[in-house]
Protein backbone atom coordinates (compact mmCIF):
# COMPACT_ATOMS: atom_id res chain seq x y z
CA UNK A 1 0.00 0.00 0.00
CA UNK A 2 1.65 3.26 -1.07
CA UNK A 3 2.41 5.69 1.72
CA UNK A 4 1.66 9.39 1.21
CA UNK A 5 3.08 12.20 3.35
CA UNK A 6 0.66 15.18 3.64
CA UNK A 7 2.46 18.38 4.61
CA UNK A 8 0.16 21.34 5.48
CA UNK A 9 -0.06 23.67 8.48
CA UNK A 10 -3.90 23.67 8.28
CA UNK A 11 -5.21 20.70 10.26
CA UNK A 12 -8.56 20.80 8.43
CA UNK A 13 -6.75 20.33 5.12
CA UNK A 14 -4.77 17.43 6.54
CA UNK A 15 -8.03 15.94 7.91
CA UNK A 16 -9.71 16.12 4.49
CA UNK A 17 -6.74 14.73 2.56
CA UNK A 18 -6.27 11.91 5.07
CA UNK A 19 -9.92 10.90 4.71
CA UNK A 20 -9.83 11.04 0.92
CA UNK A 21 -6.52 9.26 0.43
CA UNK A 22 -7.31 6.57 2.99
CA UNK A 23 -10.53 5.97 1.07
CA UNK A 24 -8.38 5.56 -2.05
CA UNK A 25 -6.45 2.85 -0.25
CA UNK A 26 -3.33 4.81 0.61
CA UNK A 27 -1.56 4.96 3.93
CA UNK A 28 -1.33 8.54 5.11
CA UNK A 29 1.27 10.25 7.29
CA UNK A 30 0.83 13.91 8.36
CA UNK A 31 3.27 16.74 8.96
CA UNK A 32 2.21 20.26 10.02
CA UNK A 33 5.41 21.98 8.92
CA UNK A 34 8.33 21.70 6.51
CA UNK A 35 10.71 20.89 9.36
CA UNK A 36 8.45 18.10 10.61
CA UNK A 37 8.20 16.69 7.07
CA UNK A 38 12.00 16.53 6.69
CA UNK A 39 12.23 14.88 10.06
CA UNK A 40 9.71 12.20 9.05
CA UNK A 41 11.44 11.61 5.71
CA UNK A 42 14.75 11.19 7.53
CA UNK A 43 13.31 8.48 9.73
CA UNK A 44 10.80 6.80 7.42
CA UNK A 45 12.19 5.49 4.15
CA UNK A 46 8.86 4.04 3.05
CA UNK A 47 7.22 7.31 2.00
CA UNK A 48 6.23 6.95 -1.64
CA UNK A 49 4.92 10.44 -2.41
CA UNK A 50 4.71 13.86 -0.77
CA UNK A 51 1.81 16.32 -1.06
CA UNK A 52 3.37 19.61 -0.01
CA UNK A 53 1.67 22.92 0.82
CA UNK A 54 3.67 26.07 -0.04
CA UNK A 55 2.54 28.83 2.32
CA UNK A 56 3.40 27.65 5.81
CA UNK A 57 4.21 29.67 8.88
CA UNK A 58 7.82 28.60 9.41
CA UNK A 59 9.70 26.86 6.57
CA UNK A 60 7.96 27.40 3.23
CA UNK A 61 7.04 24.44 1.03
CA UNK A 62 9.50 25.57 -1.66
CA UNK A 63 12.35 25.52 0.84
CA UNK A 64 11.33 22.09 2.07
CA UNK A 65 11.11 20.92 -1.56
CA UNK A 66 14.74 21.83 -2.17
CA UNK A 67 15.84 19.76 0.80
CA UNK A 68 13.68 16.80 -0.23
CA UNK A 69 14.95 16.79 -3.82
CA UNK A 70 18.55 17.00 -2.63
CA UNK A 71 18.17 13.99 -0.38
CA UNK A 72 15.76 11.86 -2.42
CA UNK A 73 15.70 12.59 -6.15
CA UNK A 74 13.32 9.76 -6.91
CA UNK A 75 10.66 10.76 -4.44
CA UNK A 76 7.71 12.34 -6.29
CA UNK A 77 6.48 15.63 -4.82
CA UNK A 78 3.20 17.38 -5.62
CA UNK A 79 3.06 21.04 -4.67
CA UNK A 80 -0.46 21.86 -3.54
CA UNK A 81 -1.30 25.49 -2.89
CA UNK A 82 -4.15 27.95 -2.67
CA UNK A 83 -1.93 30.36 -4.67
CA UNK A 84 -1.82 30.03 -8.44
CA UNK A 85 1.07 32.50 -8.77
CA UNK A 86 3.75 30.20 -7.36
CA UNK A 87 3.66 28.23 -10.61
CA UNK A 88 5.69 31.07 -12.09
CA UNK A 89 8.37 30.69 -9.43
CA UNK A 90 11.09 28.57 -11.06
CA UNK A 91 11.95 26.86 -7.77
CA UNK A 92 8.51 25.22 -7.95
CA UNK A 93 9.69 23.43 -11.11
CA UNK A 94 11.64 21.03 -8.90
CA UNK A 95 8.30 19.45 -8.00
CA UNK A 96 6.75 16.79 -10.20
CA UNK A 97 3.38 18.51 -10.29
CA UNK A 98 1.59 21.66 -9.16
CA UNK A 99 -2.07 21.48 -8.11
CA UNK A 100 -4.20 24.40 -7.00
CA UNK A 101 -6.29 23.59 -3.92
CA UNK A 102 -9.91 22.99 -4.71
CA UNK A 103 -12.99 21.41 -3.04
CA UNK A 104 -12.86 18.96 -5.94
CA UNK A 105 -9.91 16.68 -5.21
CA UNK A 106 -10.11 14.80 -8.53
CA UNK A 107 -7.10 16.50 -10.06
CA UNK A 108 -4.99 15.93 -6.95
CA UNK A 109 -5.98 12.27 -6.77
CA UNK A 110 -5.25 11.76 -10.47
CA UNK A 111 -1.80 13.31 -10.09
CA UNK A 112 -1.05 11.06 -7.12
CA UNK A 113 -2.06 8.01 -9.19
CA UNK A 114 -0.05 9.11 -12.20
CA UNK A 115 3.16 9.83 -10.30
CA UNK A 116 3.03 6.66 -8.22
CA UNK A 117 2.76 4.73 -11.48
CA UNK A 118 5.53 6.73 -13.14
CA UNK A 119 7.91 6.08 -10.29
CA UNK A 120 6.85 2.46 -9.96
CA UNK A 121 5.55 2.98 -6.45
CA UNK A 122 1.93 2.04 -7.06
Amino acid at each position, binding site marked *: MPKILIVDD*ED*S*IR*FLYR*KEFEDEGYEVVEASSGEEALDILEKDEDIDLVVLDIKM*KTMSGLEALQHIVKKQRNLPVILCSAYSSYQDDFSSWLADSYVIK*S*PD*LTELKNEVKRLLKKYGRD
Partner: protein
Amino acid sequence: MGVCWLKDKLAPSECPSIDPEKEASLLSDKALRLKKKCSSCIKFVVDLSSVNGVDTQIYKETMPVAFGNEMRERIEQLEEKLSSIYRSTKVLKETTNLEEVISITLSLLTSKEGFGFERAIFLKYEPDRKGFVPVAVHSAGVRGSLSDMFISVDMDHPVLKAFFERRCAVFDRKNQKKIYELMVILGVDSFGLIPLWGSNRPLGIIIVDNPISMKHVDPASLKALEGLAGQLSLAVEKAMLYEDLKCKLKELEETKRQIEKQQNIILNMEKALAVVDVTSKIVHEIRNPLTVIGGIANMLLKKREFDEEALKKISDEAKRIDMILKDLSSYNEASHPKKIKADLVYVVKEAIREFRRNSKAEVVYKLPKAPVEVQIDPLHIKKMIKAILYNAFEAQSKKGIDAPIKLEMEVYSDEVVITVIDRGGGVSDEVKTKMFEPFFTTKKDGTGLGLSVVLMVLSEHGGNIEVENTKDGLCVTVKLPLKEVQYAQNLNS
Protein backbone atom coordinates in the same frame (compact mmCIF):
# COMPACT_ATOMS: atom_id res chain seq x y z
CA MET B 1 36.42 155.38 -10.52
CA GLY B 2 32.89 156.71 -10.16
CA VAL B 3 31.38 153.82 -11.99
CA CYS B 4 27.91 152.65 -11.11
CA TRP B 5 28.94 149.16 -10.17
CA LEU B 6 31.28 150.40 -7.48
CA LYS B 7 28.64 152.45 -5.66
CA ASP B 8 27.00 151.06 -2.55
CA LYS B 9 23.71 152.70 -3.41
CA LEU B 10 22.27 153.66 -6.74
CA ALA B 11 19.53 156.02 -7.76
CA PRO B 12 16.76 154.34 -9.82
CA SER B 13 17.85 156.11 -12.98
CA GLU B 14 21.51 155.12 -12.65
CA CYS B 15 20.98 151.50 -13.75
CA PRO B 16 18.85 150.72 -16.80
CA SER B 17 18.86 147.01 -15.96
CA ILE B 18 17.11 147.41 -12.63
CA ASP B 19 13.34 147.80 -12.43
CA PRO B 20 12.93 150.29 -9.58
CA GLU B 21 9.47 149.00 -8.75
CA LYS B 22 10.15 145.32 -8.77
CA GLU B 23 13.87 145.22 -7.90
CA ALA B 24 14.17 148.16 -5.52
CA SER B 25 16.28 146.14 -3.08
CA LEU B 26 19.04 145.81 -5.67
CA LEU B 27 19.57 149.57 -5.64
CA SER B 28 20.87 149.44 -2.09
CA ASP B 29 22.40 145.92 -2.05
CA LYS B 30 25.74 146.14 -3.87
CA ALA B 31 26.73 142.51 -3.55
CA LEU B 32 23.43 141.24 -4.80
CA ARG B 33 23.39 143.81 -7.59
CA LEU B 34 26.82 142.74 -8.74
CA LYS B 35 25.79 139.10 -8.88
CA LYS B 36 22.42 139.51 -10.53
CA LYS B 37 22.88 142.45 -12.87
CA CYS B 38 26.43 143.78 -13.23
CA SER B 39 27.98 140.48 -14.17
CA SER B 40 25.90 140.40 -17.36
CA CYS B 41 26.19 144.08 -18.14
CA ILE B 42 28.44 145.00 -21.09
CA LYS B 43 29.57 148.17 -19.36
CA PHE B 44 30.76 146.17 -16.38
CA VAL B 45 32.66 143.72 -18.59
CA VAL B 46 34.31 146.53 -20.54
CA ASP B 47 35.24 148.41 -17.37
CA LEU B 48 36.71 145.25 -15.87
CA SER B 49 38.79 144.59 -18.93
CA SER B 50 40.44 147.94 -18.50
CA VAL B 51 41.37 147.18 -14.96
CA ASN B 52 45.02 146.46 -15.06
CA GLY B 53 45.38 144.51 -11.83
CA VAL B 54 46.11 147.78 -10.00
CA ASP B 55 43.05 147.71 -7.85
CA THR B 56 43.33 144.10 -6.77
CA GLN B 57 40.61 144.54 -4.24
CA ILE B 58 38.14 145.45 -6.94
CA TYR B 59 39.47 142.58 -8.96
CA LYS B 60 39.04 140.19 -6.10
CA GLU B 61 35.57 141.42 -5.38
CA THR B 62 34.28 141.54 -8.89
CA MET B 63 35.99 138.76 -10.88
CA PRO B 64 34.51 135.93 -8.89
CA VAL B 65 31.15 137.62 -9.05
CA ALA B 66 31.33 138.02 -12.82
CA PHE B 67 32.92 134.81 -13.81
CA GLY B 68 31.99 132.88 -10.76
CA ASN B 69 28.46 132.68 -12.10
CA GLU B 70 29.66 130.73 -15.01
CA MET B 71 31.79 128.62 -12.74
CA ARG B 72 28.96 128.28 -10.33
CA GLU B 73 26.61 127.23 -13.11
CA ARG B 74 29.10 124.72 -14.30
CA ILE B 75 29.62 123.48 -10.76
CA GLU B 76 25.86 123.26 -10.27
CA GLN B 77 25.54 121.36 -13.51
CA LEU B 78 28.28 119.01 -12.42
CA GLU B 79 26.67 118.61 -9.03
CA GLU B 80 23.38 117.76 -10.71
CA LYS B 81 25.15 115.31 -12.98
CA LEU B 82 26.92 113.72 -10.06
CA SER B 83 23.64 113.51 -8.15
CA SER B 84 21.97 111.88 -11.12
CA ILE B 85 24.83 109.42 -11.49
CA TYR B 86 24.79 108.71 -7.78
CA ARG B 87 21.02 108.10 -7.80
CA SER B 88 21.28 105.85 -10.82
CA THR B 89 24.13 103.80 -9.38
CA LYS B 90 22.24 103.48 -6.09
CA VAL B 91 19.24 102.10 -7.97
CA LEU B 92 21.51 99.85 -10.02
CA LYS B 93 22.93 98.34 -6.82
CA GLU B 94 19.45 97.36 -5.70
CA THR B 95 18.06 96.12 -9.01
CA THR B 96 18.29 92.46 -9.86
CA ASN B 97 16.24 92.47 -13.05
CA LEU B 98 18.59 92.48 -16.05
CA GLU B 99 16.24 94.42 -18.31
CA GLU B 100 15.88 97.14 -15.70
CA VAL B 101 19.64 97.30 -15.11
CA ILE B 102 20.26 97.74 -18.84
CA SER B 103 17.51 100.36 -19.12
CA ILE B 104 18.79 102.40 -16.15
CA THR B 105 22.35 102.20 -17.49
CA LEU B 106 21.39 103.39 -20.96
CA SER B 107 19.18 106.14 -19.50
CA LEU B 108 22.10 107.36 -17.42
CA LEU B 109 24.26 107.57 -20.53
CA THR B 110 21.68 109.33 -22.70
CA SER B 111 19.91 111.65 -20.27
CA LYS B 112 20.76 115.35 -20.02
CA GLU B 113 21.20 114.94 -16.29
CA GLY B 114 23.53 112.03 -17.00
CA PHE B 115 26.21 111.86 -19.65
CA GLY B 116 24.12 113.36 -22.39
CA PHE B 117 24.99 111.06 -25.28
CA GLU B 118 22.39 110.98 -28.02
CA ARG B 119 22.37 107.18 -28.20
CA ALA B 120 23.55 104.21 -26.14
CA ILE B 121 23.41 100.59 -27.28
CA PHE B 122 23.83 97.54 -25.06
CA LEU B 123 25.33 94.47 -26.69
CA LYS B 124 25.15 91.35 -24.53
CA TYR B 125 27.80 88.66 -24.74
CA GLU B 126 26.24 85.35 -25.85
CA PRO B 127 28.62 82.46 -25.13
CA ASP B 128 26.68 80.10 -27.43
CA ARG B 129 27.13 82.46 -30.36
CA LYS B 130 30.62 83.53 -29.28
CA GLY B 131 29.88 87.16 -29.81
CA PHE B 132 28.02 90.32 -28.80
CA VAL B 133 24.37 90.74 -29.71
CA PRO B 134 22.50 94.09 -29.46
CA VAL B 135 19.70 93.73 -26.93
CA ALA B 136 18.70 97.29 -26.05
CA VAL B 137 19.08 100.82 -27.36
CA HIS B 138 18.21 104.20 -25.84
CA SER B 139 18.33 106.99 -28.31
CA ALA B 140 17.31 110.52 -28.92
CA GLY B 141 14.83 109.48 -31.54
CA VAL B 142 17.05 107.63 -33.99
CA ARG B 143 15.56 104.30 -34.88
CA GLY B 144 17.15 101.74 -37.09
CA SER B 145 17.66 98.05 -37.36
CA LEU B 146 20.65 97.12 -35.31
CA SER B 147 20.11 93.39 -35.58
CA ASP B 148 22.96 93.23 -38.14
CA MET B 149 25.30 94.53 -35.48
CA PHE B 150 26.59 91.21 -34.28
CA ILE B 151 30.25 91.34 -33.24
CA SER B 152 31.91 87.95 -33.17
CA VAL B 153 34.88 87.39 -30.84
CA ASP B 154 36.68 85.68 -33.69
CA MET B 155 36.77 88.88 -35.73
CA ASP B 156 39.93 90.87 -36.07
CA HIS B 157 38.32 94.03 -34.81
CA PRO B 158 39.70 97.08 -32.99
CA VAL B 159 36.52 97.12 -30.89
CA LEU B 160 37.40 93.66 -29.61
CA LYS B 161 40.99 94.70 -28.97
CA ALA B 162 39.78 97.51 -26.70
CA PHE B 163 37.28 95.17 -25.10
CA PHE B 164 39.83 92.52 -24.21
CA GLU B 165 42.16 95.21 -22.92
CA ARG B 166 39.23 96.26 -20.71
CA ARG B 167 39.49 99.92 -21.60
CA CYS B 168 37.00 102.53 -22.76
CA ALA B 169 37.88 103.80 -26.24
CA VAL B 170 36.74 106.25 -28.89
CA PHE B 171 36.62 105.11 -32.51
CA ASP B 172 36.83 107.53 -35.38
CA ARG B 173 35.95 106.71 -39.00
CA LYS B 174 38.99 108.59 -40.22
CA ASN B 175 41.58 106.37 -38.63
CA GLN B 176 39.74 103.05 -38.18
CA LYS B 177 39.26 101.40 -41.53
CA LYS B 178 38.48 98.00 -40.07
CA ILE B 179 35.33 99.24 -38.36
CA TYR B 180 33.87 100.83 -41.46
CA GLU B 181 31.00 98.35 -41.58
CA LEU B 182 30.09 99.05 -37.98
CA MET B 183 30.16 102.80 -38.62
CA VAL B 184 27.82 102.34 -41.57
CA ILE B 185 25.34 100.40 -39.48
CA LEU B 186 25.55 103.01 -36.73
CA GLY B 187 25.39 105.87 -39.22
CA VAL B 188 28.02 107.90 -37.36
CA ASP B 189 31.62 108.95 -37.80
CA SER B 190 32.59 108.42 -34.21
CA PHE B 191 31.46 106.28 -31.30
CA GLY B 192 32.65 105.33 -27.84
CA LEU B 193 33.00 101.86 -26.36
CA ILE B 194 32.54 100.85 -22.74
CA PRO B 195 33.56 97.25 -21.96
CA LEU B 196 31.69 95.36 -19.28
CA TRP B 197 33.48 92.50 -17.55
CA GLY B 198 32.30 90.19 -14.81
CA SER B 199 34.61 88.57 -12.25
CA ASN B 200 35.97 86.17 -14.84
CA ARG B 201 33.76 86.42 -17.87
CA PRO B 202 32.78 88.96 -20.56
CA LEU B 203 29.35 90.50 -19.99
CA GLY B 204 28.86 92.93 -22.83
CA ILE B 205 29.68 96.16 -24.60
CA ILE B 206 28.01 99.56 -24.46
CA ILE B 207 28.38 101.77 -27.52
CA VAL B 208 27.68 105.50 -27.15
CA ASP B 209 27.43 107.97 -29.99
CA ASN B 210 25.66 111.12 -31.27
CA PRO B 211 23.80 110.20 -34.45
CA ILE B 212 21.68 113.42 -34.52
CA SER B 213 24.30 116.11 -34.12
CA MET B 214 27.04 113.81 -35.50
CA LYS B 215 29.20 115.26 -32.72
CA HIS B 216 32.40 113.34 -32.09
CA VAL B 217 32.50 111.47 -28.84
CA ASP B 218 34.73 113.34 -26.43
CA PRO B 219 37.53 111.07 -25.16
CA ALA B 220 37.45 113.02 -21.86
CA SER B 221 33.83 112.05 -21.21
CA LEU B 222 34.66 108.44 -22.00
CA LYS B 223 37.56 108.64 -19.59
CA ALA B 224 35.09 109.73 -16.93
CA LEU B 225 33.03 106.65 -17.76
CA GLU B 226 35.91 104.27 -17.06
CA GLY B 227 35.34 104.59 -13.33
CA LEU B 228 31.66 103.97 -13.76
CA ALA B 229 32.19 100.97 -16.04
CA GLY B 230 33.19 98.87 -13.02
CA GLN B 231 29.97 99.64 -11.18
CA LEU B 232 27.90 99.07 -14.29
CA SER B 233 29.63 95.71 -14.80
CA LEU B 234 28.88 94.71 -11.21
CA ALA B 235 25.22 95.59 -11.59
CA VAL B 236 24.94 93.72 -14.90
CA GLU B 237 26.73 90.65 -13.54
CA LYS B 238 24.56 90.62 -10.44
CA ALA B 239 21.43 90.80 -12.57
CA MET B 240 22.73 88.05 -14.88
CA LEU B 241 23.51 85.83 -11.90
CA TYR B 242 20.02 86.46 -10.59
CA GLU B 243 18.61 85.48 -13.98
CA ASP B 244 20.73 82.32 -13.98
CA LEU B 245 19.57 81.57 -10.46
CA LYS B 246 15.94 82.14 -11.44
CA CYS B 247 16.38 79.80 -14.41
CA LYS B 248 17.98 77.15 -12.25
CA LEU B 249 15.25 77.53 -9.65
CA LYS B 250 12.66 77.11 -12.38
CA GLU B 251 14.48 74.01 -13.60
CA LEU B 252 14.63 72.68 -10.06
CA GLU B 253 10.96 73.36 -9.57
CA GLU B 254 10.18 71.59 -12.82
CA THR B 255 12.41 68.69 -11.78
CA LYS B 256 10.65 68.62 -8.42
CA ARG B 257 7.30 68.57 -10.22
CA GLN B 258 8.48 65.73 -12.43
CA ILE B 259 9.79 63.83 -9.41
CA GLU B 260 6.51 64.34 -7.59
CA LYS B 261 4.68 63.19 -10.68
CA GLN B 262 6.86 60.09 -10.88
CA GLN B 263 6.44 59.52 -7.16
CA ASN B 264 2.70 59.69 -7.58
CA ILE B 265 2.90 57.21 -10.41
CA ILE B 266 5.07 54.93 -8.30
CA LEU B 267 2.74 55.38 -5.34
CA ASN B 268 -0.25 54.53 -7.47
CA MET B 269 1.59 51.52 -8.86
CA GLU B 270 2.53 50.46 -5.35
CA LYS B 271 -1.07 50.90 -4.26
CA ALA B 272 -2.22 48.89 -7.23
CA LEU B 273 0.38 46.22 -6.47
CA ALA B 274 -0.67 46.29 -2.84
CA VAL B 275 -4.24 45.76 -3.93
CA VAL B 276 -3.12 42.88 -6.14
CA ASP B 277 -1.07 41.50 -3.28
CA VAL B 278 -3.93 41.81 -0.79
CA THR B 279 -6.37 40.38 -3.29
CA SER B 280 -4.12 37.40 -3.88
CA LYS B 281 -3.80 36.94 -0.14
CA ILE B 282 -7.58 37.14 0.26
CA VAL B 283 -7.97 34.48 -2.44
CA HIS B 284 -5.50 32.26 -0.61
CA GLU B 285 -7.10 32.82 2.80
CA ILE B 286 -10.57 31.95 1.52
CA ARG B 287 -9.56 29.15 -0.82
CA ASN B 288 -8.15 27.04 2.03
CA PRO B 289 -11.33 26.91 4.12
CA LEU B 290 -13.45 26.55 0.96
CA THR B 291 -11.36 23.57 -0.06
CA VAL B 292 -12.11 21.97 3.29
CA ILE B 293 -15.84 22.83 3.24
CA GLY B 294 -16.37 21.70 -0.35
CA GLY B 295 -14.03 18.73 -0.08
CA ILE B 296 -15.66 17.36 3.07
CA ALA B 297 -19.16 18.02 1.70
CA ASN B 298 -18.27 16.07 -1.47
CA MET B 299 -16.76 13.29 0.62
CA LEU B 300 -19.87 13.01 2.80
CA LEU B 301 -22.14 13.05 -0.24
CA LYS B 302 -20.11 10.22 -1.73
CA LYS B 303 -20.06 8.18 1.44
CA ARG B 304 -23.61 9.04 2.46
CA GLU B 305 -22.65 8.71 6.09
CA PHE B 306 -22.78 10.94 9.12
CA ASP B 307 -19.33 12.06 10.22
CA GLU B 308 -19.53 14.42 13.16
CA GLU B 309 -15.88 15.34 13.10
CA ALA B 310 -16.08 16.14 9.41
CA LEU B 311 -19.18 18.26 9.87
CA LYS B 312 -17.47 20.13 12.69
CA LYS B 313 -14.61 20.90 10.34
CA ILE B 314 -17.11 22.37 7.87
CA SER B 315 -18.61 24.49 10.60
CA ASP B 316 -15.16 25.65 11.81
CA GLU B 317 -14.01 26.58 8.33
CA ALA B 318 -17.23 28.42 7.62
CA LYS B 319 -16.68 30.41 10.83
CA ARG B 320 -13.17 31.09 9.68
CA ILE B 321 -14.38 32.53 6.39
CA ASP B 322 -16.86 34.62 8.34
CA MET B 323 -14.06 35.95 10.55
CA ILE B 324 -11.94 36.77 7.53
CA LEU B 325 -14.81 38.61 5.88
CA LYS B 326 -15.58 40.55 9.08
CA ASP B 327 -11.96 41.60 9.43
CA LEU B 328 -11.82 42.48 5.75
CA SER B 329 -14.87 44.63 6.26
CA SER B 330 -13.17 46.37 9.22
CA TYR B 331 -10.09 46.87 7.06
CA ASN B 332 -12.23 48.44 4.36
CA GLU B 333 -14.16 50.60 6.83
CA ALA B 334 -10.91 51.80 8.39
CA SER B 335 -10.06 53.45 5.09
CA HIS B 336 -13.32 55.50 5.23
CA PRO B 337 -13.42 57.18 8.63
CA LYS B 338 -16.34 59.39 9.70
CA LYS B 339 -14.60 62.04 11.75
CA ILE B 340 -16.30 64.11 14.45
CA LYS B 341 -15.07 66.18 17.36
CA ALA B 342 -14.61 63.75 20.25
CA ASP B 343 -12.78 63.45 23.55
CA LEU B 344 -9.85 61.06 22.96
CA VAL B 345 -9.53 60.37 26.70
CA TYR B 346 -13.13 59.15 26.82
CA VAL B 347 -12.68 57.00 23.69
CA VAL B 348 -9.56 55.32 25.15
CA LYS B 349 -11.32 54.77 28.47
CA GLU B 350 -14.23 53.08 26.65
CA ALA B 351 -11.81 50.86 24.72
CA ILE B 352 -10.17 49.78 27.97
CA ARG B 353 -13.55 49.13 29.61
CA GLU B 354 -14.80 46.94 26.73
CA PHE B 355 -11.49 45.09 26.50
CA ARG B 356 -11.51 44.33 30.22
CA ARG B 357 -15.12 43.12 30.11
CA ASN B 358 -14.43 40.66 27.25
CA SER B 359 -10.98 39.43 28.18
CA LYS B 360 -11.04 39.72 31.96
CA ALA B 361 -7.49 41.01 31.63
CA GLU B 362 -6.10 43.74 33.86
CA VAL B 363 -5.08 47.11 32.45
CA VAL B 364 -3.19 49.75 34.40
CA TYR B 365 -3.57 53.11 32.72
CA LYS B 366 -2.53 56.76 33.00
CA LEU B 367 -4.60 59.32 31.09
CA PRO B 368 -4.77 63.13 31.08
CA LYS B 369 -7.26 64.59 33.56
CA ALA B 370 -8.71 67.09 31.12
CA PRO B 371 -10.55 66.11 27.95
CA VAL B 372 -8.49 66.03 24.75
CA GLU B 373 -10.74 67.23 21.94
CA VAL B 374 -9.91 65.53 18.66
CA GLN B 375 -11.29 65.34 15.14
CA ILE B 376 -11.50 61.53 14.85
CA ASP B 377 -13.70 58.59 14.05
CA PRO B 378 -14.22 57.48 17.67
CA LEU B 379 -15.35 53.95 16.72
CA HIS B 380 -12.24 53.34 14.65
CA ILE B 381 -9.92 54.72 17.32
CA LYS B 382 -11.67 52.57 19.95
CA LYS B 383 -11.27 49.46 17.74
CA MET B 384 -7.62 50.34 17.18
CA ILE B 385 -6.88 50.62 20.92
CA LYS B 386 -8.75 47.37 21.59
CA ALA B 387 -6.80 45.57 18.83
CA ILE B 388 -3.51 46.66 20.38
CA LEU B 389 -4.69 45.59 23.86
CA TYR B 390 -5.85 42.20 22.54
CA ASN B 391 -2.52 41.71 20.83
CA ALA B 392 -0.74 42.41 24.12
CA PHE B 393 -3.09 40.09 26.02
CA GLU B 394 -2.62 37.21 23.54
CA ALA B 395 1.16 37.56 23.61
CA GLN B 396 1.10 37.31 27.40
CA SER B 397 -1.40 34.41 27.38
CA LYS B 398 0.80 32.46 24.97
CA LYS B 399 3.66 32.78 27.46
CA GLY B 400 1.41 32.03 30.40
CA ILE B 401 2.07 35.49 31.83
CA ASP B 402 -0.68 36.96 33.99
CA ALA B 403 0.40 40.56 34.42
CA PRO B 404 -1.41 43.87 33.96
CA ILE B 405 -1.05 45.54 30.58
CA LYS B 406 0.12 49.14 30.87
CA LEU B 407 -1.43 51.97 28.87
CA GLU B 408 -0.28 55.57 29.02
CA MET B 409 -1.47 58.67 27.13
CA GLU B 410 0.59 61.89 26.98
CA VAL B 411 -0.22 65.17 25.25
CA TYR B 412 2.76 67.05 23.74
CA SER B 413 3.07 70.33 21.84
CA ASP B 414 2.35 68.79 18.43
CA GLU B 415 1.06 65.26 19.09
CA VAL B 416 -0.69 62.83 21.39
CA VAL B 417 1.26 59.69 22.26
CA ILE B 418 -0.37 56.47 23.48
CA THR B 419 1.88 53.62 24.64
CA VAL B 420 0.82 50.04 25.42
CA ILE B 421 3.36 47.81 27.15
CA ASP B 422 3.03 44.05 27.69
CA ARG B 423 5.21 41.31 29.11
CA GLY B 424 4.59 38.79 26.36
CA GLY B 425 8.23 38.25 25.40
CA GLY B 426 8.49 40.65 22.48
CA VAL B 427 8.82 39.81 18.77
CA SER B 428 11.65 38.87 16.41
CA ASP B 429 13.00 41.39 13.87
CA GLU B 430 11.33 39.44 11.07
CA VAL B 431 7.93 39.62 12.75
CA LYS B 432 8.49 43.31 13.51
CA THR B 433 8.86 44.10 9.80
CA LYS B 434 5.82 42.06 8.76
CA MET B 435 3.40 42.32 11.64
CA PHE B 436 1.36 45.13 10.06
CA GLU B 437 1.04 43.39 6.69
CA PRO B 438 -2.45 42.10 5.84
CA PHE B 439 -2.86 38.38 6.60
CA PHE B 440 0.46 38.08 8.41
CA THR B 441 -0.08 36.24 11.68
CA THR B 442 1.83 34.14 14.14
CA LYS B 443 -1.39 32.97 15.74
CA LYS B 444 -2.95 29.64 14.91
CA ASP B 445 -6.46 31.02 14.48
CA GLY B 446 -5.64 34.59 13.56
CA THR B 447 -6.72 36.20 10.29
CA GLY B 448 -3.67 38.42 10.25
CA LEU B 449 -5.75 41.55 9.69
CA GLY B 450 -5.93 43.03 13.20
CA LEU B 451 -2.75 45.07 13.11
CA SER B 452 -3.17 46.06 9.47
CA VAL B 453 -6.51 47.58 10.50
CA VAL B 454 -4.64 49.47 13.24
CA LEU B 455 -2.23 50.80 10.64
CA MET B 456 -5.05 51.77 8.27
CA VAL B 457 -6.89 53.68 11.05
CA LEU B 458 -3.72 55.56 11.98
CA SER B 459 -2.93 56.34 8.39
CA GLU B 460 -6.40 57.87 7.93
CA HIS B 461 -5.83 60.02 11.03
CA GLY B 462 -2.35 61.21 10.02
CA GLY B 463 -0.72 59.18 12.78
CA ASN B 464 1.88 56.43 12.96
CA ILE B 465 2.90 53.44 15.05
CA GLU B 466 6.20 52.08 16.34
CA VAL B 467 7.01 48.82 18.12
CA GLU B 468 10.03 48.17 20.28
CA ASN B 469 10.96 45.17 22.37
CA THR B 470 11.33 45.84 26.08
CA LYS B 471 13.33 43.58 28.38
CA ASP B 472 10.43 41.14 28.67
CA GLY B 473 7.78 42.24 26.24
CA LEU B 474 6.68 44.70 23.62
CA CYS B 475 6.07 48.45 23.71
CA VAL B 476 3.63 49.72 21.07
CA THR B 477 3.65 53.50 20.60
CA VAL B 478 0.86 55.22 18.69
CA LYS B 479 1.20 58.90 17.73
CA LEU B 480 -1.62 61.15 16.58
CA PRO B 481 -0.77 64.65 15.28
CA LEU B 482 -1.84 67.68 17.30
CA LYS B 483 -3.46 69.46 14.37
CA GLU B 484 -6.28 67.03 14.89
CA VAL B 485 -6.07 67.59 18.65
CA GLN B 486 -6.98 70.38 21.04
CA TYR B 487 -6.18 70.03 24.70
CA ALA B 488 -9.14 71.52 26.58
CA GLN B 489 -8.03 74.37 28.82
CA ASN B 490 -11.13 74.32 30.96
CA LEU B 491 -10.96 71.30 33.24
CA ASN B 492 -14.61 71.70 34.14
CA SER B 493 -15.87 71.44 30.55
